[in-house]
């Protein structure tokens, strides 16, 4: 049995497989299927200060090798999260990463402060990269604003601070460096790619919001590229995601430089995907001669590759 625990950026995970934000609610539905304690961690659906309604339907559409969504961060807000969702998640032996959203800097900071000091919160993840809300991309498209936001969040918490990167930018590394300067402990990547589907019968975009976020296997090569670049050039630990369906996908991300991985869209196709991927990753590691995910990471880690090339 390979050693499964990983720790980085102040987070200790029993294994390197988490669930991605927005594809797992607050864990309640999956908990009907399996023990959430099997997971390295749960990244919960984005939490805002006040309840958010999200976008008008249609909110999801099929896409080749994946899907489009324009949920628009519907969520019951901080108070509900603290009074109902967090206590539920606390019952399980798994790390809880709170995905935080806001319309402006203060909105982010209030949620970060609100979850700080609450038992059972392992880290916060600033979602500065949601393509489905009008002001969602504001912070992810301009390094200076990103740095300012991260610095404000840093002031508000001593929890490990993760920042979620957008793939819809010219230079993800510049953004990552700005987040590092602002005080981020880790990065997560990638959020969804901005896309669209057309309904030929209605002669118009399928989604109510016109555009949506592309996710699933289709985006895996983009995720791997951005994780590789961030890990090699920013020098912060990265939680890798985008199209992970199997243990071998997870290992690809680890070799690209990810310290841990998150499973998103795959849970729609297979609700049992996260614990399955935990098992498959153990097998893949053994098959490729590694005793742990950390060892695989070290064997392929970007810094070593840089030096060798």
């Amino acid at each position, binding site marked *: 049995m390979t050693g499964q625990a990983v720790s980085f950026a102040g987070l200790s995970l029993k294994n390197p497989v988490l669930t991605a934000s*927005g*594809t*797992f*609610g607050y864990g*309640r*539905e*999956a908990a*009907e*299927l399996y023990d959430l304690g099997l997971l390295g961690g749960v990244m919960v*659906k984005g939490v805002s200060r*006040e*309840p*958010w*309604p*999200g976008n008008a*339907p*249609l*909110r*999801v*559409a*099929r*896409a*080749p*090798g*994946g*899907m489009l*969504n324009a*949920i628009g961060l*519907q*969520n*019951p*807000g901080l108070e*509900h999260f603290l009074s109902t969702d967090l206590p539920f998640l606390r019952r399980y032996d798994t790390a809880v990463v709170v995905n935080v959203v806001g319309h402006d800097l203060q909105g982010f900071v209030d949620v970060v402060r609100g979850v700080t000091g609450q038992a059972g919160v392992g880290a916060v993840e600033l979602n500065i990269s949601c393509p489905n809300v009008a002001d969602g991309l504001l912070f992810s498209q301009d390094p200076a604003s990103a740095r300012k936001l991260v610095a404000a969040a840093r002031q508000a918490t001593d929890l490990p601070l993760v920042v979620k990167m957008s793939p819809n930018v010219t230079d993800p590394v510049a953004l990552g460096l700005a987040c590092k300067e602002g005080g981020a402990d880790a990065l997560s990547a990638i959020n969804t790619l901005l896309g669209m589907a057309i309904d030929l019968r209605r002669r118009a975009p399928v989604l109510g919001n016109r555009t949506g976020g592309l996710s*699933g*296997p289709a985006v895996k090569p983009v995720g791997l590229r951005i994780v590789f670049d961030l890990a090699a050039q920013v020098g912060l630990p990265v939680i890798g995601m985008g199209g992970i369906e199997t243990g071998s996908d997870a290992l690809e991300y680890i070799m690209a430089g990810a310290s841990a991985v998150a499973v998103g*869209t795959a*849970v*729609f*196709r*297979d*609700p*049992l995907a996260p614990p399955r991927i935990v098992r498959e990753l153990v097998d893949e590691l053994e098959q490729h001669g590694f005793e742990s995910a950390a060892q695989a990471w070290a064997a392929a880690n970007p810094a070593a590759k840089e030096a060798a090339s």
Partner: protein
Amino acid sequence: MRQWELLVGEVLAPARGYVELRLEATQALEAEPGQFFMLRAGNLPDTYLPRAFSWYRQDAPRRLSFLFRVEGPGTRELARLRTGDLLQAMGPLGRGFPLPQQPIRAAILGGGVGVPPLWGLAKALLQGGSDVLALIGARAKAHIVGAKEIAALGARVLVATDDGSEGYRGPLTDLLPEEGIDAIYACGPEGMLRRVQQISLADGPPAYLALEAPMACGYGVCMGCVVERAEPPSDQGEYGRWARVCREGPVFAAQEVRL
């Protein structure tokens, strides 16, 4: 809910454009009328997501069938299945039709792909001693599904078609008796559901509507399938504006939703 690997038994073509898949499980399957399953229809580029289908008929605890119309890539792949193939399913999912405590006089309406859940509903109502009037709609005679099968259970069946090629010509709701109905159950196109809702809210009998919405997960985690609530709960703020068709539905009481 759980995951099932189902064996394709018979593949039937009951009407133009429709396929009925008769499936076998290794264990008894229990599902309420109106509940649904997510079927994994292949893994082609366009069928990454599973697709939602109400269960249709069940003639033995381990045998369940689904009835669908070929619409796009998902249903096209399902229609390619042959006897002996395996199919991944997740379910039963959602909240089915509420059944009466005592015998009632029920009208059940189904248009097009809305017919499947009515078979199980008719069976349950009849078993409970209720009187069942089934109204079945279709574009034309060649597209009628379920009428014979539901009649065989003991329900009274009336048919309406858009072109009059069989039964009444015009909207299905025209066939609803003005009197003597204690509850309406409906599944089908949005226009029909809206009409049933109007009838019910305008002092008609209580009505239960089985809704559809494009779904990604089918079990409540993606928030993709929402419908607007008529009266959002007071304690949930803006968040409470929506209900999930896959979890709070697919069956809603007429007064619960804004269509």
